[in-house]
């Protein structure tokens, strides 16, 4: 049981801090010159960065960024992917063939390379990061939804619905999509971990959110220039990032065991 409680606590904290951020007494952009590169102390738990800004406050702002990007990307990808994949699997024939080829093309771009190119060309900003990562993210959901639809399509309850004269919308809405949800939910969980790393990665490359907004990735990038004098500038955002991703992955594993889906 403690194996679930700790990661769950981390994620609940991440959610609370992200949503309540604007109401917390934070000063992420408040510069205190004498405190430049000050290491962690009892007054300021995580120390100050190279401009004399409190790192803890900036980490919380970074939590907002990563949470909203993850939420946005997973929502868009899940909706688009499920829709495209289900329709492709259900209709079959030429529609399916074209959609599958289309998905193959998107799958041909390795890792976050397409997202790097897209956000590089569209320019930085949180909307562009969400767009770029959604363009990369929807394919995984679509492929999964299509495969599941293909196997569900010939089940008895679907055949019965067809025989009773239910229309396509009704069959997909009430007989197919509810059964897709479990595997899609697991994919979404692991997707969150991927998106959090990808957003931080884009920000690390300078393609994500722009200063003075904070992102864990850009904080790490920023800290690498001061690693000898102030290693806490790299340690703090990295450990928080690792903690969130680790928690998501642990819960994803548990969820997969619970829902007993091994085909993934």
């Amino acid at each position, binding site marked *: 049981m403690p194996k679930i409680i700790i990661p769950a606590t981390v994620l609940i904290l991440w959610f609370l801090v992200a949503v309540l951020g604007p109401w917390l007494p934070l000063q992420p952009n408040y510069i205190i010159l004498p405190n430049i590169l000050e290491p962690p102390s009892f007054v300021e738990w995580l120390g100050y960065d190279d401009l004399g800004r409190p790192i803890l406050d900036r980490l919380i702002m970074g939590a907002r960024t990563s949470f909203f990007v993850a939420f946005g990307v997973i929502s868009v990808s899940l909706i688009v992917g499920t829709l495209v994949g289900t329709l492709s699997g259900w209709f079959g024939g030429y529609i399916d063939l074209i959609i599958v*080829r289309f998905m193959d093309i998107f799958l041909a771009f390795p890792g976050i390379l397409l997202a790097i190119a897209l956000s590089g*060309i569209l320019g930085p900003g949180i909307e562009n990061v969400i767009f770029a990562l959604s363009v990369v993210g929807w394919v995984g959901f679509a492929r999964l939804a299509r495969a599941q639809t293909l196997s569900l399509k010939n089940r008895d309850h679907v055949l019965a619905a067809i025989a009773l004269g239910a229309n396509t919308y009704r069959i997909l809405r009430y007989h197919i999509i509810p059964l897709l949800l479990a595997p899609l939910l697991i994919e979404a969980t692991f997707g969150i971990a991927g998106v959090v790393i990808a957003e*931080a990665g884009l920000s690390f490359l300078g393609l994500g959110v722009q200063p003075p907004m904070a992102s864990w990735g850009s904080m790490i990038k920023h800290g690498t220039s001061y690693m*000898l004098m102030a290693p806490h500038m790299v340690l703090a955002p990295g450990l928080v990032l690792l903690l969130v991703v680790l928690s998501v992955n642990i819960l994803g594993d548990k969820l997969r065991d619970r829902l007993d889906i091994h085909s993934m």
Partner: protein
Amino acid sequence: MYNDEARRWERDIFFVSQWSQTLCFTDLTRLLIQLSKMLSFLFSRLFSTLIVILGVVTLVFLLIHMVPGDPVQAMLGESATFADQEALRVSLGLDQPLFIQWQSYMLGLLQGDLGNSLYSKSPIIEMIWERFPATLELALAGLLVALVLALPLGSIAALRKDSVYDNGSMVFALLGVSIPNFWLGPMLIYLFSLTFGWLPVSGNEGFSSLILPAITLGTALAAILARMIRATLLEVLNEDYIRTARAKGLRESAIIIHHALRNASLPIITILGLQLGTLLGGAVITEIVFAWPGIGQLTIESIERRDYPVVQACILLISLSYVLVNTLTDLVYAWLDPRVRYSA
């Protein structure tokens, strides 16, 4: 002495006669059918690869049209004169209809002409060939690190299931997929370069400068592979032929190397091929962390300079190598497992 010689002859003659028997007429037709099935598998696989390549090229071609506003203005900046802007527009062909642009992009590509860099004015293809070996070196080194870590970790975890080793390996696997390479890299630099001073901080000068980037790049793949190897081996170890091998009294090492790992290699090769994309994508970030002079660094530099034709070329090159490796993986898979090629 004589007996041995005779026995060897006897054996050889037996093999020859066996071989000639298989070559009778019906078997010949069966061979031809199998050959044609194999060829049709090959062609269908190559055909779909061709379509994917066409799609990738088109998508990369369209990237430049996604630049918000006027791409020419974005590339030259606000201060450029109207004449300069028009000159660039004409030289990039952006004044032509979209289809004509696509056509000339394709034709140029087929002739190995990717245009010139807006920044250095030199041909893009030369810039890329200059950088590509470094990326390839890094990717191969990362792959090697992944295999060296994952093979023993995954195997021991499977062989000693639920032991301390198993738990340790799986904790490593969980950490490996969760740790971002742009954080692992700086941490390794801090520890091994800045604190102990054992390895260079960055750059590409000899073997010692390859170690940290390779570990940074290979760790995530090692984690995924270790899990995969464990799962596959656990499945294989339950098969009848492993029990037979044990019953025959084979040594445990022989059972694992010749019977278990050999049969587990198929799914592992597939995962390796699929994950190579993650490796290539990760190479971009790793190159930035270690100032490694490869394609990834060129991509990010060109994005910063708004040198979009170079960005397009880099993305294209990495994606195409990924597509080719994937196709190759499929073919190797079919070559190793006859069930795949004959069922096509």
